[in-house]
């Protein structure tokens, strides 16, 4: 049995988001949504985390940082791209410094749509991640 889905720990990385999605991610922790019910903790440390949540697009400066953080997470791990920026770059896509969505540097498992993504959608995404985590553990 996998305990991963009972206690997914999250690290949240802010790419070049407008902070809209960031605030929604943090809103999940508030009494209103309280993701700790599912054992989810925002841990802020790649070595402890199981889920990497990235908001905002990837730019040329943070590409290497995202890669490092990803590689510092222990397996099994999943990546959640929150917001349209993280999925494709959104309207920043053509900026001189933007590389595009998160999947241009690391593999992404779940995309959460929305600009900004709603907390309900994010929680939905996380629940989808839990299933994925279980599959990954079995592997």
């Amino acid at each position: 049995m996998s305990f991963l889905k009972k206690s997914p720990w999250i690290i949240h990385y802010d790419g070049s988001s407008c902070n809209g999605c960031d605030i929604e991610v943090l809103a999940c922790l508030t009494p209103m949504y309280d993701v700790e019910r599912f054992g989810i903790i925002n841990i802020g440390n790649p070595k402890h985390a199981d889920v990497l949540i990235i908001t905002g697009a990837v730019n040329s400066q943070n590409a290497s940082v995202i890669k490092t953080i990803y590689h510092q997470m222990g397996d099994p791990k999943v990546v959640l791209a929150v917001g349209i920026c993280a999925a494709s770059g959104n309207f920043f896509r053509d900026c001189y410094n933007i590389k595009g969505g998160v999947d241009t540097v690391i593999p992404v498992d779940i995309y959460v749509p929305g600009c900004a993504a709603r907390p309900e959608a994010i929680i939905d995404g996380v629940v989808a991640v839990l299933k994925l985590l279980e599959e990954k553990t079995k592997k």
Partner: protein
Amino acid sequence: MKALLGIFGFVIFAPLAGGILCGLDRIVTARMQGRYGPPVLQSFYDVLKLFQKQNLVVNRFHGYFLFCFLIFLIISGSILYAGDDFLMVVFALTVADMFLVMAAYSTNSPYSFIGAQRELLQMLAVEPMLLITGIGFYLAAGSFDIGHIVSVGKPLIFKMPGIFFGLVYVLTIKIRKSPFDLSTSHHAHQEIVKGLTTEFAGPTLALVEIAHWYETILMLSFVFLFFASQPVVGILLAILIYFIEIIIDNTNARVKWQFTLKSSWIVTLLFGGINLFILYILK
């Protein structure tokens, strides 16, 4: 025989009780913040999950240091539950903590390093009070032997209220609660990444969590010793103290290390020291 039973009980039941206590802690904390909170068994899920994760290390030593940390923590508690010398318990606890500090140092990572420094400072802040508690027991009960301390007729709290207060004060440091969770913190608290435990991942981190359960129970056992003649009251009061710690945890912001060190030494000197003097004069 009794001693062996005590040790056995501690080794088996302390993590269970500690884990449940931590789970309750998280629920109570959540309720205080108007949230619902995780299930009671959440701490166990966390640890079991950590064991299923990849063992990510910076070098091959720090995991083993943590293993030694856990072993010495268990030894420390075993000495207590075997009814042996109180001072030995404190000394073994120091050794355990030393291993934790060395584990953090050995990673040579900036965040762990700061955590290790702060853990050392916390040890510096706590150790005098723990030893003074031991001496207080000696003066009040006539022996360092925990077996003897437990068998004293009247609760010792009446003879050593000051020491009790001092111990509860440093307890906050020992069970890593705000405002004194300098070296590393719990659950969703964060500062300087995760302090001491930053570089520990997977099964290695699980050891730290389990050790934390043991430590919590050990510390609450210290509280219990003050009420040992009334076991039921003692257990209830130990839980009450833990509840008070949760309240303190939720109502205080983290302080600087200077304040931690100075205030705990002042409390130690004022409450512990004066209480010792009174016990000495009464003797």
